[in-house]
């Protein structure tokens, strides 16, 4: 597992968002803030979300840009943004977003690891309810 994908500064555990668009924007800003994407990538994330929801199950969504927006990815990275109050996600209830910026396939093992965690109800709960940045990083990159 690559350990350079998740910057601790891109783990935000106490966010709130009125709707899905605001939540996706928050994820995009987190990726921009750590220098992983250029600003237009955020709009591409919204475009992707509108055309096909990135909800994956277990209260988790994985916002990411369109294929056409890969040019705005400066380096592969993910962010983890938790919304304890929940966000309505096209009818689903989302409390955790894993935003993705990826040029190629560098993030696939991490995504597979995330899916493995979410398939285990106990680990999924631990991840959704984590209150320490270090716990999230440990869980995802172990």
């Amino acid at each position, binding site marked *: 597992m690559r350990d350079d994908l998740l910057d601790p500064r891109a783990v935000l555990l106490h966010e709130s968002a009125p709707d899905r668009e605001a939540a996706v924007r928050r994820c995009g800003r987190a990726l921009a803030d750590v220098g992983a994407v250029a600003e237009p990538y955020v709009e591409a994330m919204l*475009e*992707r979300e509108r*055309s*096909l*929801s*990135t909800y*994956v*199950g*277990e209260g988790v969504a*994985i916002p*990411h840009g*369109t*294929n*056409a927006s890969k040019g705005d990815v400066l380096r592969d990275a993910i962010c983890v943004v938790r919304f304890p109050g929940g966000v309505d996600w096209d009818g689903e209830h989302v409390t955790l977003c894993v935003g*993705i910026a990826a040029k190629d*396939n560098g993030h*696939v*093992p991490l*995504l*597979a690891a*995330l*899916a*493995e965690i*979410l*398939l285990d109800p106990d680990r999924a709960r631990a991840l959704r309810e984590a209150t320490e940045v270090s716990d999230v990083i440990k869980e995802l990159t172990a």
Partner: protein
Amino acid sequence: MAQRTVVVASASGLHARPAKLFVQAAVKAGVPVTIRAGEKAVPAKSMLGVLSLGVVQGTEVTLEADGPGAEEALDTLAALLSRDLDAEEALDA
């Protein structure tokens, strides 16, 4: 047991958009379908299961199903995997 082996054509492999489209098609298939990559097999209608396979472009996967309609369902799903769904994205937008 009906079976199809296919090489995943989408540039982004089987996660993100192509995974979602595959899972949606599997839900509609009407018969339970299993997708296998290497040693690991998961229900094709489980987004998390499919993501957990970590399939990238060029990975060979095997689809399996049983019962009435299995052959047709696998034909449909195998055809989907053998197309580059990322390249078709602009057309859908």
